[in-house]
């Protein structure tokens, strides 16, 4: 029993339902704050329409939480920042040109938020009990439901109704379809490619592009000890390693070239940074045991690269995290099995 106690003291990221409400809401609002630099960069690159999408997501997330709790006569928790965070993350994960395909698709972000809040979170009893990351489920649901609108990407412009914004592929899309050569060509040279990826001047979701801004937010969270290094670093490390080993491809034959991949491109694109620091680390949906968190991170990294290299989608972060969300309770169970008391104590 002494062991368990010690472990709980070390945990910064205990499931929020154990901690007091004030702490939960402070953590949540801090995470929201740490996402702001990336959001601002996204707004700068993609213009007011990005702001509109994100705001729509946040408002509908807050509203659906409030309405659901009102209907079920539950205590309102709208102010704890978690619904805001879900809406914000969902908005940051949507393509800025969502309705350049069809201007009447304003319902898309709203549906995403409702699915995220109601089905993924409130049906399970609210914050602290959800199995899956709500924002990611919302995005996955939208990706499958509106496959065309969700995969149209535009080059960064700052026009509001930029229906004529140039459609283009994301860096990973180019990498998957046409190879690294074409990607470097598209950005001029390799150095320019890396810097542009770092700054975020490229096609992609609203909040995923600016790696540098995301890293600032992540560093802040690490410094405040709201997240720990275990998940993000094992996630990124695994992904980088696998990208280097298996990411190379002989364009002529289409065969895989070992040890020829470009890990930097993979790390800097496709929402990997956003996913690793802000979504895989979600307190509720990842394992609570440290060892388990490392396993979780490695699993995320491996699945991401499996989907990117072998799978049907150019970017795999979302599905990788969701798949590992399925396994999180199992990992927790396996890692805790030697101290049976832990499960009992939680049950009360």
């Amino acid at each position, binding site marked *: 029993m002494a062991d368990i106690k010690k472990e709980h003291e070390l945990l910064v990221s205990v499931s929020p339902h154990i901690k007091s409400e004030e702490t939960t809401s402070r953590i949540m609002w801090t995470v929201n704050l740490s996402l702001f630099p990336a959001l601002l960069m996204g707004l700068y690159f993609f213009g007011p329409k990005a702001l509109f999408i994100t705001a729509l997501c946040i408002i509908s997330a807050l509203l659906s939480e409030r309405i659901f709790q009102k209907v079920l006569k539950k205590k309102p928790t709208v102010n704890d920042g978690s619904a805001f965070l879900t809406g914000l993350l969902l908005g940051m994960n949507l393509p800025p040109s969502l309705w350049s395909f069809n201007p009447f698709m304003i319902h898309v972000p709203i549906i995403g938020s409702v699915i995220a809040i109601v089905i993924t979170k409130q049906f399970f009893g609210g914050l602290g009990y959800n199995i899956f990351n709500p924002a990611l489920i919302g995005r996955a649901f939208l990706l499958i439901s509106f496959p065309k609108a969700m*995969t149209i990407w535009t080059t960064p412009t700052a026009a509001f109704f930029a229906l004529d914004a140039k459609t283009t592929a994301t860096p990973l899309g180019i990498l998957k379809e046409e190879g690294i050569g074409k990607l470097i060509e598209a950005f001029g040279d390799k150095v320019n490619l890396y810097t542009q990826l770092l700054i975020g001047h490229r096609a992609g979701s609203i909040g995923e592009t600016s790696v540098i801004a995301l890293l600032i937010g992540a560093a802040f969270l690490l410094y405040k000890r709201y997240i720990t290094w275990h998940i993000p670093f094992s996630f990124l490390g695994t992904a980088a390693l696998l990208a280097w080993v298996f990411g190379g491809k002989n364009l002529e034959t289409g065969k895989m070239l070992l040890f020829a991949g470009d890990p930097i491109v993979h790390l800097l694109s496709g929402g990997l940074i956003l996913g690793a620091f802000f979504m895989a680390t979600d307190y509720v949906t990842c394992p609570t045991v440290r060892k388990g968190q490392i396993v979780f991170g490695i699993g995320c990294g491996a699945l991401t690269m499996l989907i990117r290299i072998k799978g049907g989608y150019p970017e795999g972060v979302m599905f990788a995290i969701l798949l590992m969300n399925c396994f999180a309770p199992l990992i927790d169970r396996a890692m805790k099995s030697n101290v049976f008391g832990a499960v009992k104590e939680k049950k009360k």
Partner: protein
Amino acid sequence: MKEMIKITISLVIIFVAAGLIMASVFAKTAPIVKIKKEQEETAARKKMMPDAESIVEAGKWEPYGKHGKYFEGKKGEEIIGYLVTTYGKGYSSYINILVSAGKDFKVKGINILGHGETPGLGDEIEQDYFKKRFEGKSLEQLEVVKVEGTDKVQAISGATISSRAVTKGVREAIQLLKEKYSGSVSARSEVAQ
């Protein structure tokens, strides 16, 4: 002992009665299934090659280890084109394709016979606009590109893998036809000259 006999007898009677029912239904339905299936297949082939007076099976082949066939479309004694059933390895299934080709080994048209691709994305391969993209393509042109305005096959946006699978299946079918027939055709054209 008496009980055992009773059980056995009752079981045997049930088995025999059930067997009779099933066998009679089978006897009635099996020919219908066979005839309808043949009719459907013939109709599908006929639709792909309306000019031909007869379409004769010329051989079997095995794309991806599946069972494909190829046919000669004839008008009188003369071959006017070919039909091939082929497969493409798609996103989540093997796509069964019927390819119609002229004597010059250019694609005349394709039809999707069966697939299990993602609804809404991959299943767009069934749409006419996509099938039309194959018309008149030669072996060299049967390649997938993502942009408009080339002489190659343009992919369905969002369903590159399915598009590529269909294209690859068609290309293999044309290749098969070239292997089987190009010798005889060139020989014949030499004679004509």
